[in-house]
């Protein structure tokens, strides 16, 4: 068996692969079968709806150009905003995956390394049971910060300028600029621009703690940096 075609093909090739797939993939799938997958429409919540209406007010020109005008009837307007909120989420998610945002930003908070203090509640399974997490956007690298609790922390204006030119707001940021999300200036996001801002504002909007602000105590190391010992000052002067 160990050196024969059939042994290698069936036991090592098919058998061991199937065993691994059963134990490592089918088991978690079965364990989470009680958590139904939400559609994008079901993901639109009050916090996020507020952000979409806010986008409509901040960027009226772009919003009307790319998404149209809400109906005058208040009930119809409600439905219209919900529909547009879902559409923006889909557009934003497409840019988030297509631009490779997820290669530099994670979407999960671990229970270690003081991450709860920096970002908020540790990630839970039910947060990921939705259409926009297929495939899941946990991420494997953080050049920039985790984004799973980013929504609501900063205004949509801030995000518009930041996507247009990150270094304008966060000096020394290695993030690329995304001028193709705009019609020439940060005041005029195009559909992709509106979508990506809406998507980022949605992240974490399902939590009670939305918006979750960075609430950590400053590290004593930082104080040392801010009040350097005298010999450091000499070094600086010598430079």
């Amino acid at each position, binding site marked *: 068996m160990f050196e024969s075609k059939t042994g290698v*093909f069936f036991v090592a090739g098919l058998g061991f692969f199937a065993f691994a797939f059963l134990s490592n993939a089918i088991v978690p799938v079965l364990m989470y079968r009680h958590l139904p997958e939400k559609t994008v429409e079901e993901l639109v919540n009050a916090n996020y709806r507020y952000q979409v209406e806010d986008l409509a007010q901040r960027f009226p020109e772009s919003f009307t150009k790319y998404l149209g005008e809400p109906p005058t009837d208040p009930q119809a307007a409600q439905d219209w905003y919900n529909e547009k909120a879902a559409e923006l989420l889909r557009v934003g998610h497409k840019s988030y995956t297509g631009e490779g945002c997820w290669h530099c930003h*994670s979407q999960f908070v671990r229970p270690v390394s003081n991450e709860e203090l920096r970002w908020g509640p540790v990630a839970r399974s039910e947060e990921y049971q939705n259409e926009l997490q297929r495939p899941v956007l946990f991420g494997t690298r953080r050049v920039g910060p985790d984004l799973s609790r980013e929504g609501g922390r900063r205004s949509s204006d801030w995000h518009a300028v930041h996507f247009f030119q990150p270094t304008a707001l*966060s000096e020394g*940021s290695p993030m*690329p600029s995304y001028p193709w999300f705009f019609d020439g200036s940060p005041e005029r996001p195009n559909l992709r621009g509106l979508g990506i801002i809406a998507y980022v504002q949605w992240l974490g909007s399902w939590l009670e703690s939305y918006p979750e602000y960075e609430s950590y105590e400053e590290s004593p190391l930082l104080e040392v940096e801010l009040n350097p010992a005298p010999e450091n000052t000499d070094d600086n002067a010598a430079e």
Partner: protein
Amino acid sequence: MSEDTVNSDASPREPLVDERIVYWYFLTAVGYLFISLMGGFLMAFQLIRHNPLQGIELLSPGRWRMLHTNAIAYGFIANGFLGMLHWTVPRLTLHPVLNRKLSWFIYAAWQVVVVGTAIGLIFGEAQPLEWGETPVWIDPLAQLGLLLVAINFMAPITQTKGPLYVSLWYFIAAFVWTFLTYAMGNFVPEYFVSGTSAGAVGGLFIHDLVGLFVTPLGWGMMYYFVPILLKKPIWSHGLSLVGFWGLAFFYPLQGIHHFLYTPIPMFLQYGAIISTIAVELVVTTVVINFIGTIWGSGRAVVTNIPIRWFYTGMVYYFLTCFQCALQVTLTFQALIHFTDWVVGHAHLVMFGVFSMWQLGMMTYLIPRLLKTEWYSRKLCEAHYWLSAGGMLVMAGDLILGGLFQGWSWAALQPWDASVEVSQPFWITRVFAGIAILAGQIAFAWNIYKTWQLSKASAEAVA
């Protein structure tokens, strides 16, 4: 020698090995290697905040970063391996591949897959799974291509009788695993499961792509070429058996170790950690077997450049596996997950081990394919030293930088501090990358000049 006999005594028959396709696979592979390097440089310059091409949509570093990894896996490594298989499988089985036209069809189809993937990525059609970014419309074609590859090479293998040589165990397993792995990663998490379960499947995919596609083809290649180059058999057949079956059993069980501390159930995380540590023990037996093989002919590392590539790659393999046994523990994970430590690890595996083995294999085969000695041994030496040295600096630099990033985050310093602390490491990485690029330019130039020489000598004969 053997191929000459085959050629002369059976002139109406086709030769055993189609050398032309081997050569074309290698040239194509080297072409993609340069594209991959370009993607790496765009991202590297972006990180040190000196990207001259900032703000151009089709040159976005985020998109090219995906091209970087996909071009190395599906462009360079897959094409290199296909060329290698066309050389080794007919020789090991003494039967040609199923159909030569099919071989060329696969060659063309695979280039459509790789170029299609590249175009899709550049136009922002990626899917969010590492190495599974391949746009949806490419997936079925790639799947068909992998099936045809398996059929084309399994045909000669099934015609052999009795126990198989070690390389063929690895190749057979790789044909099955690559097909299944690609299907699992490109269809299951996209269409069938979401969230945490998709994370488990995604982890399995990115792990198996290295472990069940690249690794078995790589080791099968080593078991074929090392004894030929050293002109002696593998040291221990028993250890070869332990190595293959240990890898086959433990390697597929580890995918979840890419997502430790996620909401994936803890007992599955522990299982992945334990099987990862188990496979490091298996790896050690394989490495001992190859050290046993070269024992007594160690000077070959100095005189024989392909052997030097192979054994340097193997030392890097041991280092990277040892690193893996450490980083897979929850203690290390808390610090190094999400940092450049992992990026360093990935470069050490994909370039330091498997690309270097392939470059060694090409260094050995290209003069045989062109029937001409290398134009310049000095360029071969430069290619080796720039690649091996550049890789060592890059991996060491990124692994060390990752520790600083991890400490900066755990200490709750402002996020910018972790970016600033990374700058010296990212700048060093650019220079290591330039060394690697210079090595590959030396290689490409050497191939070009050797080809010119081969053309001249062919004309002289005519």
